[in-house]
């Protein structure tokens, strides 16, 4: 199978680029290079449909001159292109008005944290196991009753370098694995399973296939559900998409462009006492774990929600200085970016969640997609469950139901969380959230469910 082949010397690109930026008179600059080799197997109808490989080398540059902020992204890394583009970048900077939101980049030098399990020592052996791993999951789904499965396996190795005018200079290596499977018994009866992480040894392909097949089988014989108010139990996949949407907009950039319902909410109680949420770049095996952010600032763990109270936002240097605080190590090139979002798990088993809600109409929702907002600033949204969805009656999962839509608000969702399960799972999906989220099963009360009219 394919190995990474060194072609362009990264150090020569860093040297060329930094010298040129200094010569052109940029006061601040950050150069990020990323060389990666990524492979993918896609499958459907229980067979591989395509095998892919991407060999990629790219360079991101963020620079400032007289508080005019510019950036460039190269996948064309010839020296001629780099040189001419940086000259164009200077012309661009000279043409722009100053960015009043720019307060500089992070001052180094820095020391960086150690993170466990960023690199899989067995990565190179994985290529030859990849098709078998996919087939293991497909067979596990079939053993549960699935007739066919579709999905994707991605594995990636990346080397990142950063160099800034303020003393950041570092290199990081990482590997990543992402597997998901959707199994079908018939066209309307389906289930989803996934397993992701930094180390192949920590992935459970059989478990993912089994989960997908089991839910698909359970969802056969589904009937159209009735709209109304329900208690809901969200699987980690649904929780990541919907409950996770709140910490995902806990940053000043989202607030300032009107894409967050957390404006002026810091210090307010937005959920029950047992909810605490972090942005945590240091989690072992976390797909968003990394030692430095896009300014070269060391990453860390930032408190977003503590005991139900919104405690703070993630920041880069500029948003932090504007807010009178310090960077949380979450710089992206334009806006702060999450690493891993981590929900502290609760104290209940999944069965206890079923028991707690036994006296109220309840839905167990295993997957959802297409979450869209009528109003980000008020958090008004709807989302469409897909795959198995079930009524919960007398503390047990019962009738599979279909054709319903979650239509409520994000403040309600967070406020009405009733209980959470003991263990959380790392979720990274094709659909949002954009970042990995570690989240448990969550029971939420009184959620509005709608249905299409015929």
């Amino acid at each position, binding site marked *: 199978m*394919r190995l990474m082949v060194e072609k362009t010397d990264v150090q020569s690109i860093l040297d060329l680029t930094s010298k040129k930026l200094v010569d052109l008179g940029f006061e601040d600059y950050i150069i990020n290079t990323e060389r990666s080799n990524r492979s993918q197997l*896609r499958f459907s109808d229980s067979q591989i449909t395509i*095998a892919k490989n991407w*060999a990629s080398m790219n360079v991101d540059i963020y620079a400032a001159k007289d508080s005019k902020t*510019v950036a460039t992204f190269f996948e064309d*890394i010839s020296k001629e292109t780099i040189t001419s583009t940086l000259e164009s970048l200077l012309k661009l900077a000279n043409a722009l008005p100053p960015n009043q939101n720019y307060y500089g980049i992070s001052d180094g030098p820095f020391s960086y944290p150690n993170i466990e399990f960023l690199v899989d020592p067995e990565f190179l052996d994985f290529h030859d196991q990849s098709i078998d791993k996919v087939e293991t999951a497909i067979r596990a789904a079939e053993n549960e009753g699935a007739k066919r499965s579709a999905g994707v396996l991605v594995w990636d190795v990346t080397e990142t370098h950063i160099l800034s005018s303020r003393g950041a200079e570092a290199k990081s290596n990482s590997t990543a694995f992402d597997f998901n499977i959707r199994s079908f018994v018939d066209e309307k009866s389906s289930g989803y399973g996934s397993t992701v992480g930094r180390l192949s040894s920590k992935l459970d392909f059989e478990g993912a296939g089994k989960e997908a097949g089991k839910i698909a089988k359970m969802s056969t014989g589904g009937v159209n559900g009735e709209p109304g108010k329900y208690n809901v139990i969200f699987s980690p996949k649904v929780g990541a998409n919907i409950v996770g949407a709140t910490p995902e907009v806990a940053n000043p*950039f989202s607030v300032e462009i009107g894409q967050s319902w957390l404006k002026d909410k810091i210090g307010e109680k937005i959920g029950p006492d047992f909810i605490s949420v972090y942005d945590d770049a240091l989690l072992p095996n976390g797909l968003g774990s990394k030692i430095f952010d896009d300014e070269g600032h060391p990453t860390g763990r930032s408190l977003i929600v503590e005991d139900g109270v919104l405690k703070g936002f993630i920041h880069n240097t500029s948003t932090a200085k504007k807010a009178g605080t310090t960077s949380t190590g979450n710089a992206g090139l334009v806006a702060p970016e999450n690493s891993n979002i981590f929900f502290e798990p609760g104290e209940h088993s999944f069965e206890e969640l079923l028991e707690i809600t036994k006296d109220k109409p309840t839905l167990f929702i295993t997957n959802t997609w297409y979450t869209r907002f009528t*109003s980000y600033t008020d958090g008004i949204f709807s989302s469409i469950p897909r795959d198995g969805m079930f009524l919960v009656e007398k503390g047990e999962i019962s009738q599979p139901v279909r054709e319903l839509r979650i239509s409520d608000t994000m403040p309600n969702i967070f406020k009405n969380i009733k209980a959470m399960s003991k263990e959380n799972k790392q979720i990274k999906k094709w659909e949002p959230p954009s970042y990995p989220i570690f989240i448990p099963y969550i029971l939420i009360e009184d959620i509005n469910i*709608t249905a299409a009219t015929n």
Partner: protein
Amino acid sequence: MTSDPYDLVEKAIDEGSKLGAKYIEARYEKLGGNVSILKNGVPELGGINRSRGIGIRVLKDGGVGFASFNEMTKEEMKIAVAFATKMAELSGKRRTKKIKFSDEEVHEAKYESKGVNGKRPFEVNPEEKMERLLSIDKIVSELQTGAVIPFRYFFMNDQTQKKLIVTNEGARIESEIDLLQLFGLIVAVNPNTGSKEQTFIQKGKAGGLEALDFWNINDYIENKAKTLGKIVTESKEAPKGTIDYVVGPNVIGICAHENTGHPSEADRILGREGAQAGESYLNQEMIGERIGSEHVTIIDDPTLEGSYGFYLYDDEGIKAGPRYLHRKGIFEEMLHNRESAAFMETQSTAAARAIGFNREPIPRMANTYLAPGSFSFEELTEDIKLGVFMNDFTEWNIDDRRYQSKYVGLEAYLIENGEIKHMVRRPVLETTTPKLWGSVDAVAKKDLLEFDAATCGKGDPMQGAPVYHGGSFMRIRNVEVR
């Protein structure tokens, strides 16, 4: 040592043939783009993108392999071809249903869609681009509507893309396309009640900066902002019960895209997108079945000049033309690439699109619209006793079989006894695809036809494809609103 990319494309075809590929295509793409970002009147960023690379796709032994690279060396090319060929072979040998590509006519062609002289993306200086954005922001921030607009975010992206596709069957297609895109999010707030309403703005078309004038962008943005202001200050509760709807071009467009375009994609019907964008309520046996009323003819046509989804040959080198997804309410054609066409023993409909050199070509929409009818706007509304005129939408979603959809109105008005009355707030059209198209009893005439730009999501990794969607106006009878 760096090689000429055009030479690498030719050599990749030779290399694949040597390795026994039944089919090999090499696609070189070079993209130069510029971006300007404005947040609440502050220039947040000016950006430059420079990208180039080659994608290789191989069919061998009933399997398909794909590899891409952006370091232009012979060694990288050889590794990519070897990977794609080997993985096609390995995966193909395990398949019980072998992948084939449909036999198609081979073309050699060159085409382009460039901005007007002096207005092409790389010809317009960055000051002018940022000034255009600043003038848009000024219009919104200074508008007197009774509402305030404290959240304003604008993002303009222009690009020139050069592409060369070569296959071992003899296809050779070269193209050069300029594209301009403008995105925005603005939120209006009623200062007395705190009531808020948001709108996303997306404009896009093939061409250069002249597109801003084509769109009358300042007037367009001013109207959008004024409408938002009216919604938060004047609108009343929307009616419920069984009512009629008249919907505008942008609403028709999203319905044509979501309720018809997506379920007509043959790869979804075959289950290839099962774990991502989903499958379809349609299937091959349903071709010829009635889906909507006789007023519903939905066409997807990549060849519309200057359109956001414009192309003349798809990314497998097949010559494009209009596809009649529904004709007079009957399910007629699917969106096929060569792989899905071979599975269904038919021909490609030239729908293969890849959004970059590092993506595989899969069946996609381009410009999807409801064919105009013969009614005037007044004729659509004159006999409605109680209804809603939904001219634009805000939130929407649809299940992954594309059967039950929800569209929430943005600019919407009450219709009472044939007259358009006051604005109504967030009316909901939540129904099934057959009910939606089956209830259409009139479509407005051609001179009211309009298109809007959108980004269509599908594939893994995600491929956000530029598309148009549109229509004129249509009437939907007897919709139950809870």
